[in-house]
């Protein structure tokens, strides 16, 4: 009896996981999460990062200073 219940529960859980994952797949929720949440966050992170700015380097310095840094 208990084994039967366990089997039922496992099958139920698997079916629920399958249905959940299928919804993620079908409604492109993985894509939406990436595009609407991860992407704006990362964009901001990258924009905030301190990086060398090639535009601020005087032209005559470009070769010697910028590229070798």
């Amino acid at each position, binding site marked *: 009896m208990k084994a039967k219940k366990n089997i039922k529960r496992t099958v139920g859980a698997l079916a629920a996981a399958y249905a959940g*994952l299928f919804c993620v797949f079908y409604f492109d929720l993985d894509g939406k999460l990436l595009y*609407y949440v991860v992407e704006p966050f990362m964009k901001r*992170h990258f924009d905030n990062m301190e990086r060398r700015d*090639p535009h601020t380097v005087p032209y005559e310095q*470009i070769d010697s200073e910028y590229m070798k840094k």
Partner: protein
Amino acid sequence: MVLSTELLGIRNALAEKREIKAKKAAANGKAKFPNPAFFRAKDNIDWKAQGKNLMEVVGICTEMFKEADHKAFWKLQAERCKDDLNRCILEFKQATQMSPEELKDVFLNGEKTLGKLYRKGDMATVRREWKGAVDTAYDFKEWLKMWGMLLMTFSKDLVPALNSALYYRWMISYFCCVGFMDKNTFGQKGSALRMSHLMIYDIFRYVAENLVFLAKCDKKNGNSVLNKKVVLFDEMTMGQIMAGFPDLVGIPYQLMPVFLVSEIDQLTCIPYIDAVESFGLPADTCPVPSSECGALVIDALPHMGSCFISSSMPCDGSVMASEYMSRRFPDLPVYHLTFPVRYEYEETTQDAVEDIKGCIKFVEEITGAKWNWDAYFKQMKRFNEETAYELQKWEVNKTDYPQIIGPCYELFRKWNYEMDGGADPRTMRTFEKVNDIMMKAYERREEAWRGKMKYRGIVWSCPAHYYANFSNWLANCWGIDILVEMESLNFTKVLETEDKEEALMDLARLYERMVMRRHTNGGYHNVVDELWRQVEDWRAEIIIMYQNVACKNMATLQGILDDQCRDKNYHMIWIEHDLMDPRTVSRKNMRGKVNEYMRTVMRAEPIDPTLEEFDDETAM
């Protein structure tokens, strides 16, 4: 966490033991690919710096959370949900208006119009395509498999991979590769869908594994012992030379940060191009070398590797990119592999062989590895077999029942020819499976693009990276089925696998006919006469003639191609593009050229009118 040097020492000792074990397995022909020791190699990760990195990210997260306009964010999400819901209701209503037969047809065979899957201004699709009960289930399985593979591969060494994802903008674009897989399989069903999934999976496995290597080797991540085994080569240089160095890893340096990612995400190369143009490079330079140089200017390439093999291929732009490379990383020894362009003069082949010998010697001296003829011949035998399978695909596609159409087929061919080159034994299995499915489908006389087989097409000249799935749209919207692309039609000779001198001659011949170079740099008869020969061979009705507005090689031929095409009475549609810069000619403009030609010259109606006009300017 700071690991003590002793502990790191133990790890290295273990890694050495594992490497010896792997070498023994390789000697017995049981080697795993790629060598698992490469993934495990790790010696001096700066955990303190990693901790700092992580703290910085946590800081940004918190700051963002505090600063975010939560109201506006949730309002936008609610609007999107509402729009999704309205679409669901509309689709449900449409379904109720269908007759039971129509409904059954949609349930079993999938939806007929695909334009509704796009939403203006959105990067993601509204939902995935309903391909019919069986094919949607298959698509779902492949989606799970792809995510599983990506997660498993990155978990082989998560910390460097995460660090790189937080440092390099382009790494984030790879998160969207599952969406790229969808774009390439839109409208495909049955055998065609299965073959596409098999092929694209292999490419992404290669990408994921190499991304991990790239992250591990980057100096920012501690520069692991693996670095001593890494030979970088220009992304435009073929990978076959590494077949003779089985203990080393050959990585096409700019492939991940520039070349491949620009096919996944159309917006990736824009910062590179802008940076290098502000740096002084003329704006009419081909976006391939421009982007490579721009990536160096804005520090988008990892500092890694024991040496770099540069190249003059496919054209002079690569020479410029090599110059930038050696200026940026002066500590990296560079070997310039520069093959004669007039490759049809056999007298020049010996020069190319000398160049290859010099390159082998260079790698031996830098890395201490020894060229291994057995390993080289083994890989080339595999590559020959793969080429035979490729030729079989061509034979089938030349018949009245072509079976393998669409971007995955083209991408796979290019990747296999240029990058893999028989290195990965797992690819062989894919060739076998694809061949099996293809031959069965051919025997059943299946339609490769169900209900959409109207015109036999061929693609010529260099395609737009930012619209890698253009042939998919051509089939879905107008029923133009691309049987082959110029870039696939390369060297198919069986490579020598016994005589050492002749093997090097063949390797030189192969390199000289790399993707793009064979045609665009091969002179008049390799690109003009060859086109008419191929059009006849494949019995193509429509030629999709790409025109990279910055490709000087092809620009010189436009008038000649136009004149001869008119004389021969072929349908040729010119599609302008700017290879990696979608701002010059957008995807929509590219589609517009086809729409215009099909409506005015061919007087045709689209198979799927919803795909004639839609917005994907910001879509990945």
